[in-house]
């Protein structure tokens, strides 16, 4: 039924009379072809004979494309390469020539295999041929990447990126090799080999994901055009799932993967995006171990910036400010919002309660800029506070008040919003408790103190533990907005220091070291807090 419908459409379209897998394979083939061409165009070693070049008219133009693939431009400075650094002088073995020829042969082979499969697209060996061709291509590309990495020029022997990539690729190959014997053994001893196989497969998949993403990012960051071969490589690899029929595949896992390929096409771009913006920047931490790039060439100097930071008086001042404001925020925030939630719960008129709630949420939705403007207005020399007190003190220029201004500003902005979670906890208190308390003659106030408050104790505890995990984040917006030259001594927190010294004064390494310190300590605290709340409140936060 379906077939006839398909063929009816196909016959209308005339020359499009091929199945889907034909077109997909063709796309992959074109991908391989472009990558090979770009590679060959740059590879002087094989094509030093001009007559070979004449086989491919127009290939000269491709030489102008500044792509990452290609060995030729690297040959001039062999003495500077990683290869020379690690293995000594290998030029006598003609290693470049041999590698170039091996890679070229492998590329031709993979191209030929896929082409053969394309020609015989009706045969039953089609799938196997396609997989063979594409995996050969993938293998060649990996080999190529390892080799370019080894021979690429390097200013510092300790290039983190290259080490990470080398480790990743070694692990990748190792997990792949681990899979093969297990795969063969699987038929003999299915139970024993299952766990090893699973482990190896998942390691292989996640590692190849990370490797490919790093490759794309590294390539993109040089120039967009450099990334083209890598993108083509990934795109031609991503056609493979279309070539396989889940019903024909023997491996259960693979057939499951093929059934779910749409999920992967949906999630993998998002994962790459997340990797780029959330995990890849972690590589920038290496800056904390380098000399100031503005002064001279980058070189690794170990923990100098950290030592500098911890021995400098400035750091302890920042820590004092951060912890001071955090503690004030914590204490004021918790007490006021619990107090407000308890009282709000006692308001019985439904509409009045709702109006109070809505109005108390208001400051939460407005930006800190607006809030800071209003706080400034309130604290001006002719502001409301001075009118009430009958004085003309300028509160914002007095450093001693700054922590309290920040603390009460935070309370004003978020007290209403913070009650939501307590009010939700209050609704889950057993009403029978109130009834029995009433029988014992308890008034409203007594009920509030003896039933409602103990009822939300566990919520309070969990929230308290959770906020201890964030104690190094005292905020940066209020401080930047309200701080001025006279109060910076008390206003500077970790985050504002990173901004002011890092972005404004361009002291990148020092600011990175401080930021790194903050993230690491915060992660330790959050993990500890999660452990503690699991222990005490039997509730996980993470």
């Amino acid at each position, binding site marked *: 039924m379906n077939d006839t419908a398909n063929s009816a459409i196909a016959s209308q379209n005339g020359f499009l009379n091929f199945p889907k897998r034909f077109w997909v394979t063709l796309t992959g083939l074109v991908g391989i072809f472009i990558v090979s061409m770009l590679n060959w165009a740059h590879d002087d070693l094989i094509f030093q004979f001009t007559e070979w070049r004449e086989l491919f008219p127009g290939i000269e133009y491709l030489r102008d494309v500044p792509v990452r693939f290609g060995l030729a431009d690297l040959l001039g400075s062999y003495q500077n390469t990683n290869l020379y650094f690690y293995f000594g002088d290998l030029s006598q073995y003609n290693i470049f020539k041999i590698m170039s020829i091996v890679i070229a042969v492998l590329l031709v082979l993979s191209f030929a295999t896929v082409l053969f499969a394309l020609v015989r697209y009706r045969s039953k060996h089609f799938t196997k041929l396609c997989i063979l061709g594409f995996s050969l291509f993938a293998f060649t590309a990996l080999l190529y990447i390892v080799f370019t990495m080894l021979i690429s020029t390097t200013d510092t022997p300790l290039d983190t990126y290259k080490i990470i990539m080398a480790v990743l690729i070694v692990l990748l190959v190792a997990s792949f090799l681990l899979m093969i014997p297990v795969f063969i053994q699987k038929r003999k001893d299915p139970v024993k080999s299952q766990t090893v196989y699973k482990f190896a497969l998942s390691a292989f998949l996640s590692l190849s994901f990370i490797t490919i993403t790093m490759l794309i990012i590294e390539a993109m960051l040089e120039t967009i055009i450099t990334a083209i071969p890598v993108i083509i490589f990934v795109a031609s690899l991503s056609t493979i799932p279309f070539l396989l029929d889940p019903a024909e595949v023997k491996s259960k896992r693979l057939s499951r993967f093929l059934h779910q390929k749409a999920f992967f096409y949906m999630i993998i771009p998002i*994962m790459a995006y997340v990797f780029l913006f959330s995990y890849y920047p972690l590589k920038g931490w290496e800056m904390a171990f380098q000399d100031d790039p503005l002064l001279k060439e980058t070189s690794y100097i170990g923990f100098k910036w950290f030592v500098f930071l911890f021995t400098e008086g400035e750091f302890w001042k920042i820590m004092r400010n951060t912890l001071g404001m955090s503690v004030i925020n914590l204490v004021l925030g918790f007490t006021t919002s619990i107090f407000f939630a308890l009282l709000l719960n006692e308001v019985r008129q439904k509409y*009045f309660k709702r109006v109070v709630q809505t109005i108390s949420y208001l400051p939460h939705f407005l930006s800190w800029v607006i809030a800071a403007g209003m706080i400034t207005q309130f604290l001006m020399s002719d502001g409301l506070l001075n009118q009430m007190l009958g004085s003309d003190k300028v509160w914002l220029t007095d450093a001693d008040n700054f922590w309290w201004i920040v603390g009460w500003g935070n309370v004003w902005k978020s007290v209403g919003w913070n009650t939501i979670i307590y009010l939700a906890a209050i609704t889950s208190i057993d009403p029978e408790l109130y009834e029995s308390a009433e029988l014992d003659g308890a008034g409203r106030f007594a009920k509030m103190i003896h039933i409602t408050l103990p009822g939300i104790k566990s919520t309070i505890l969990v929230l308290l533990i959770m906020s201890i995990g964030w104690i190094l984040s005292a905020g940066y917006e209020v401080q930047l907005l309200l701080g001025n030259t006279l109060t910076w001594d008390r206003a500077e927190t970790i985050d504002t220091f990173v901004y002011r010294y890092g972005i404004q004064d361009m002291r990148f390494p020092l600011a990175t070291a401080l930021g790194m310190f903050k993230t690491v300590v915060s992660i330790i605290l959050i993990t500890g807090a999660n452990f503690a709340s699991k222990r005490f409140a039997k509730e996980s936060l993470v």
Partner: protein
Amino acid sequence: MEAKAKIDQSKFRQRLPDYIFILCNTIFMCFIILIMLYPFVNTLAISLNDALDSVKGGIGLLPRKFTLDNFDQVFKNARILTAFTNSVGRTVISTAGGVFLCSMAAYVLSRKEFMWNKFVTVFFLLTMYISAGLIPMYMLYGKLSLINSFNVYWIPGLFGAFNIIVIRTYIQGLPDSLVEAARLDGAGEFRIFAQIVLPICKPVLATVGLWIAVGNWNDWFTTAVYVSGQRNIEQYTTLQYELYSELQSVLARMGERQSEFLASQGAAARQNTTTVSVRAATTIVAALPILCVYPFLQKYFVKGVHVGSVKG
């Protein structure tokens, strides 16, 4: 009759502390309303008051000399108009993109049969706790040439782990048969997501969209960090950033005045004439969209907080 009155009286006496408590509580709540609302009403009054008159101070809840000049001045200012366009543009683009990306990720993660479910969930959740910090991000944005461009407002901020959890929780609450039926009818996964799951998820998408929108509208820090240079700032400024720079100048003057002991009081006061009223008017323009919207949509926000606290 007499006995009953006696009982009532004793009941009243017994309940007297309660009544006092309710009275105090009501007064307290009115006090809270006053504290929360006064600054806004005051700013509104200043923005509607004559600029020269405002400098005398003492404007409470109502404008003394009503005028719309301040708003006229704000909307004639080309820079603030650019800022307004940028603010609206980034909010719209970020919200649309962010909701699409987060809901797609959430749909995939809500499918239990998805092979990498656990791995991807952990991969996403860890981003809430691990952050490289400001400087590495600045370097990355520089490499991606996001600095000094409009793209910095929307490209990096599309993803939110918390938003994904909230949407995923909602999708998990839907009956599985819905998706199964569509699958039996031959719909592909993307089609199921776009044509069946997305329309049903409207409430939760509204919640997440509002979070993203409010966050974008209120953001000034991105401009402060990633846009530099006079010409770039003029081109890529946002409303909140304009308010920020006005506030900075006020505070700087305050510091100067304190240290120089009112050396040039007259000049400073004259400068204040325009800034106080115009700043109030700009504040109102920046706050008004949210003020108009949030009372009607707050139930969505509150719902989101509950979901997050349960599952987060």
